């Protein structure tokens, strides 16, 4: 089918090229040029800047000529003697693992349930999706009311508000990451659920009918037919989950500025520019580590995505 379509489309493209006036070409150039300039100038130039500055030492006080180039010293220091680095890496990994195991699985489960022709499905969806519109900063505030040691909902319900027995959900470095992850998941589940619902709705219903005719029970049909057919949406959700886990910042910053058990790579980057000591090179090195990890997921995903969709529609 692609072959049949491609030849008239190709001819049309050639015809169209010739019909464009000089003014048209200028308009097109501006339409592509302006957004590209804005995006590249404010996103990719700084990203490259992070790479360059990661090899430098600069306190940011003097001009650009006070930048000292120190090779890979920042990297070596971060990997060996910078105390919060490995805890932050560990917290980011826990964040990612938790997001994959808890909200993703639960969101998928809810989506599958809500995809059955249920009465009131819309209302359930609206409620479960509600936290997604809140910023993670506000989620942080709202959950402080629940986790507060003496006045919080949980400790009051558990009867553990006395000095001796209270549980310091957000203050205890062994607990607070998990407490924050539950709060963040409260928001993330709805997001995953709605993406999977969209994926389930776009599935070919004959798939399930065929499975039912073959005598598959609900779990078998899901396991062998529905879930494999959801592969494109699984990939999207995988990328979103990785990126969200690397981006996580607002909620821990609101709770304790990302200290005492809540260190994350994103917080370390920020602390090196708006903290007391401005260490531009050091902060950039941490940013490059984030950049490398995120691009390792983003680029393969996008290349596969665009190769697939463009070869089908435009060629």
């Amino acid at each position, binding site marked *: 089918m692609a072959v049949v379509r491609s030849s008239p489309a190709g001819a049309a493209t050639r015809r169209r090229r010739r019909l464009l006036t000089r003014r048209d070409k200028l308009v097109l150039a501006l339409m*592509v040029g302006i957004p590209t300039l804005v995006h590249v100038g404010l996103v990719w130039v700084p990203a490259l800047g992070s790479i360059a500055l990661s090899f430098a030492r600069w306190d940011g006080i003097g001009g650009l000529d006070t930048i000292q180039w120190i090779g890979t010293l920042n990297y070596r220091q971060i990997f060996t003697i910078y105390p919060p680095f490995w805890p932050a890496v560990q917290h980011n990994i826990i964040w990612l693992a938790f997001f994959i195991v808890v909200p993703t699985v639960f969101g998928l489960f809810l989506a599958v349930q809500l995809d059955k022709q249920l009465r009131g499905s819309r209302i359930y969806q609206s409620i479960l999706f509600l936290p997604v519109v809140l910023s993670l900063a506000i989620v942080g505030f709202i959950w402080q009311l629940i986790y507060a040691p003496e006045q919080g909902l949980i400790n009051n319900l558990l009867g553990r508000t006395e000095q001796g027995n209270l549980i310091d959900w957000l203050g205890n470095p062994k607990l607070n990451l998990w407490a924050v992850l539950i709060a963040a998941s409260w928001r993330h589940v709805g997001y995953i659920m709605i993406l999977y619902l969209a994926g389930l709705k776009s599935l070919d219903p004959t798939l399930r009918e065929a499975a039912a005719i073959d005598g598959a029970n609900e779990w078998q049909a899901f396991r062998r037919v529905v879930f494999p057919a959801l592969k494109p949406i699984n990939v999207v959700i995988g990328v979103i989950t990785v990126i969200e886990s690397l981006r996580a910042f607002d909620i821990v910053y609101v709770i304790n500025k990302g200290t005492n058990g809540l260190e994350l790579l994103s917080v370390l980057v920020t602390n090196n520019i708006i903290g007391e000591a401005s260490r531009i090179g050091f902060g950039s090195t941490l940013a490059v580590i984030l950049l490398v990890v995120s691009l390792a997921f983003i680029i393969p995903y996008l290349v596969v995505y665009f190769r697939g969709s463009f070869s089908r529609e435009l060629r």
Partner: protein
Amino acid sequence: MAVTDADVTRAAPRVAVTTAGQRRRIRPARVLLHAFLIGTCLVWLAPLLWAVYTSLRPYADTAERGYVSLPGHLGLSNFTAAWTNAELPRYYLNTLIVAVPAVLLTLLLASFIGFAVSRFSWKFNVALLILFTAGNLLPQQVIITPLYRMFLLIPLPTWLNDTGTLYDSYWGIIAIHVAFQVGFCAFVLSNYMRTIPHELTEAALVDGASVWRQYWKIVLPLCRPALAALATLEFIFVYNDFFWALVLMQSGDKRPITSALANLEGLYFTDLNLIAAGSLLAAIPTLIVYITLQRQFVRGLTLGATKG
């Protein structure tokens, strides 16, 4: 859009099949499922309802009876206190100053890219879209350090910003929102515009319509549903931004409401009742948007994730 049209036609036979099958099968499973979903929804609403309950009780009432107790008194005093003491209206205004131009500019620039990429096939189309989409997916912290220094170095006339630089100005915050979000919107809009038949613009071209006319008069009006969905989604994104304004603005009183909350907590929101009222006040505009434009919001999100 293409997906929703297809949904409607595809969903129809399935409804018939399942309801016919369900009638005959066991009902207890359904009852159990509803019970489970109702329970989950109650748990999901609990944090918000708890915040509402706490915010309605004066501090003295909770101090006397404890937070988990029946109220002796309910009222809006925490809301009025948060509203006036923390001067919240100013921060809502700051948000508006940033969000309205940011969303409009983002959509305009993204529709340029979407139009060019979907109507004209060049060698760079795929590369360009990868560049934009990848840029939007980067964690913000990857670019913040050089961006912060750039903003300090880029001069701005003092009538535009009193510090004379892009740093600590609304312009800077608008600019970074546009630059960052244009990636996502260009991706969504180019997908959407590819579903508009080529014959439409081709016919216009043969009739001698200029490129700009094709864009403005033919393609853009047809994108209204996608633009509405993206506008809703982007408004929420910009409204909820915490990070950009936190780092790129120094003056607390210029910050939009979400970023301002971090400062306000220490200064004005001194007890849990006020924190509850303050964060609910900050959340109310997004909740209103959600309640009135839920479909648009959801569609904006899923437009990006499923192929248009």
